[in-house]
């Protein structure tokens, strides 16, 4: 065996033994992703179901009853009755209901006179997204009711036929869970390496390593391989949880998923290496890892917030967030299948990021202490 191979073997064996003996790295690699995924998989959902909707009927009538029946039948609403708008408004302000529909006393009279009465819909606009969804739900019920009233099958001249591809039931879990995997893996990848190398600096073992004939890439490679495998193990656990527990379909090729995950893992580990080499102490390394990984992956990856709606300068910033590319690949592979036109450019971007981070790590990691 030549010396280089011997050195690598020694270091990788050492790293693996340390992983096996140190429960914290196993916890970060397997337990942290599993717990986070379970917590967030159940905790994060954007579907506005069960809207508590107030119904203000100032004067009961057959027309009013038919309309309120419409809301009662809707799967989206938990209706609550109010006798006047004032109490409903108080309830809205106190957060007891999310919106209310107001049928004034003259509703039935005006309707029968053909006077086109106004139906007031008041929603709490504080959460604009939620408000918009409620408005849509109410509008749907109102449209159906309108069609029944006029007896026409043509409530509106233009008939919209929505087709939501890939996720016809619009289950937000189906796209959030793949996105979460990216967020969580960013975290574990960077945290694992950032803390592990910083620990070598603090314990003085790095100094002892550096005076041997070992070269800096050997040190980096020996760090990468075990943690790469560890991270990929966490990835497999996450995918299994997503598919079996959350029932998210995996329509694309698992092989491509593995490739994308590998590139992403390399980018994350590379980033961790850069952070830990620059920081040289666990405290600063951990702090930088948190600031530069979790929040950007959460907010700038397109996982929850739509990237194309962000202002152009911010969109530019999202390009340096590796999770952005991985989120896109994951959502496509899980829900749409292996769409090469999405997967290829994103894989390419991930490869570039991995190369850049690993290259920078190699550049900043000099075999010197100054």
């Amino acid at each position, binding site marked *: 065996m030549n010396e280089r191979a011997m*050195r690598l073997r020694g270091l990788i064996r050492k790293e693996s033994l340390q992983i096996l003996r140190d429960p914290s790295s196993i916890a970060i690699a397997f337990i942290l992703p599993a717990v986070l995924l379970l917590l967030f998989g159940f905790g994060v959902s954007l579907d506005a179901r069960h809207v508590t909707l107030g119904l203000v009927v100032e004067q009961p009538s057959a027309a009013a009853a038919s309309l309120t029946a419409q809301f009662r039948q809707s799967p989206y609403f938990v209706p609550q009755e109010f006798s006047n708008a004032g109490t409903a408004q108080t309830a809205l302000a106190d957060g007891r209901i999310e919106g209310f529909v107001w049928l004034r006393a003259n509703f039935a009279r005006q309707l029968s006179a053909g006077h086109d009465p106004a139906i007031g819909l008041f929603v709490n606009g504080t959460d604009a997204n939620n408000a918009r969804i409620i408005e849509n739900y109410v509008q749907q019920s109102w449209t159906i009711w309108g069609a029944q009233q006029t007896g026409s099958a043509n409530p509106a001249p233009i008939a919209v036929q929505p087709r939501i591809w890939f996720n016809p039931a619009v289950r937000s879990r189906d796209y959030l869970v793949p996105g979460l995997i990216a967020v969580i893996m960013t975290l574990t990848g960077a945290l694992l390496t950032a803390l592990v190398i910083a620990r070598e600096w603090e314990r003085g073992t790095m100094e*002892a390593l550096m005076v041997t004939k070992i070269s800096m890439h050997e040190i980096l490679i020996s760090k990468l391989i075990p943690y790469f495998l560890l991270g990929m193990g966490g990835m497999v656990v996450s995918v299994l949880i997503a598919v079996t527990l959350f029932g998210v379909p995996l329509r694309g090729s698992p092989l491509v998923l593995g490739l994308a995950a590998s590139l992403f893992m390399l980018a994350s580990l590379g980033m961790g290496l850069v952070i830990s080499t620059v920081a040289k102490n666990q405290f600063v390394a951990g702090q930088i890892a948190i600031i530069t990984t979790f929040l950007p992956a959460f907010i700038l990856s397109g996982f929850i917030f739509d990237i194309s709606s962000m202002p152009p300068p911010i969109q530019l910033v999202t390009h340096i967030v590796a999770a952005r590319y991985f989120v896109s690949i994951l959502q496509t592979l899980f829900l749409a299948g292996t769409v090469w036109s999405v997967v290829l450019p994103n894989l390419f971007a991930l490869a570039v990021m991995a190369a850049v981070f690993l290259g920078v790590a190699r550049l900043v990691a000099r075999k010197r*202490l100054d």
Partner: protein
Amino acid sequence: MAPGLEPGAAIGKPLVIAGLTRRFRAGKRLVTALDGVSAETSAGLVTGLIGPDGAGKTTLMRLIAGLLRADAGSVRVFGTDVRADPLAVQGMLSYMPQRFGLYEDLTVQENLDLYADLQGVATAARPERYRELLHMTGLAPFTARLAGRLSGGMKQKLGLACTLIRAPRLLLLDEPTVGVDPVSRRELWEIVDHLVRKAGMSVLLSTAYLDEAERCDEVLLLHEGQLIGAGRPGGFTQAMAGRSFHFRLPGRSKRALQAALATVQGVTDAVIQGEAVRVVLEPGMAPEAVQLPGFSGLTITPVPPRFEDRFVDLLRARSGARGGIVPVAEAAQAGTAETVIEVSNLVKRFGGFAAVDGISFSVRRGEIFGLLGANGAGKSTTFRMLCGLLPASSGRLQVDGFDLHHAAAVARGRLGYMAQKFSLYGELSVAQNLRFFAAAYGLTGARRAARLDWALREFELGPRADVTSRDLPLGFKQRMALACALMHEPDVLFLDEPTSGVDPLARREFWRRINALAESGVTVLVTTHFMEEAEYCDRLVIMAQGRILATGTSEELKAATRSASLPEPTMEDAFIALIMADNAKTVEAAA
């Protein structure tokens, strides 16, 4: 590749250092760690790199190992320039950093395997090398033990074994003996001696312990980044011949005597050693010529010179300073029979392990009392219990009438505490630290102002009042720590490793203040693993494995070891004899 020893292949000097300079940025200051150092070492010898903490020893080691880049000057290892080809140099040397990088979660054998892989030792050559190293270090029975579970001395020996897995041409050892108990220290030295003599290896070994200089073949003396001396240690010591004496005056305070002697014209150095004061005179000065009004009937005996005398002499010559004069009032109440600290059957268990295992001792007012022991002997645990930082598992302890762990906060106002490594708020300036501790001790109004003023003046901190304390030199940090501990004029003073690593002059200055305090009736409890410091104590206990091996004055402890083969035992000899006897007893009991 076989462990290449190739005797005679050492072409030229192992180390040639020329004009080596290295600066660091510490806060806003630029610190010169090494200032134009030029030196050479000889092949096949142990070269000691001697100097206090902050002298630049580690920086020099790292520069030689190619881990740092010099600002100016060059280092050649067997003719190869480190800067030009660091990998080639790293191939020739082995380096054991101060905190050697043992992987604590790997076993002894796994650590050895790792370094054998890293150093490219052929698989076939390993069994023989392992056997040799394990035998030499005495680690053979512990190969399956995790390195983290080894004692401090065993860790150092394992570190040395890992460093030596492939016999290098040049071996760099950075403070291998720091914090190690005297027995392990002796064993480490035996390994080093054995290696050099047998394998013809060249060694550069750094240490802050001046007594270790005499074990080296040649020494380089480093102080504040400058080389202040180089040569054979015997030569250094011999230059001091006829200048060292013991002054004794039974019946009078040795501390008052020491304080008086230290101020006499013509005295280079005066330190307490047991019951005597060890004095080094200026060249040509006769001991009878020492004028000491008020002290008559002195007994003066000549003693052999030691390495530290020369070091102090060199430093005095450089600085010229004598330090301020601290008058020592020979107080009447000094050494009264009143007991201030009382410990009986004290036990502290962590899980099933007894860190302190039933110890008893008592300290009288105005006494300087030492807890002597290696790292892990239980002295820090005892110390922390006395300060009230840890609850005792069982037994009784009282400080000035209180068990501080249970007593009201006010009771703590009577003790002063100076932590190991002089821990103070590094981000705060000197004045801010002092103000904080004044407030923490509840000083207010005029008294507070007076004490703050006293601290700045007495410890000569005034000019540095606004310096961020992290950027202070070590000696000043120590002064500031003492100033903070004395802010409220405590009755009892706890000092944890108070002078470890500081240079001999700073140590003398420190002890001058402590002596003065003791004379004025302050009770002082000191922990130390530093044998020299034990000599300054009135009485001390020697601890090992949580138990007290012996109690007494340093004279008494040394006298117990005196034999025909060892007519003048040192404190270290006494310590080792006690440990050996104790180990023998343990083995006997086990058998």
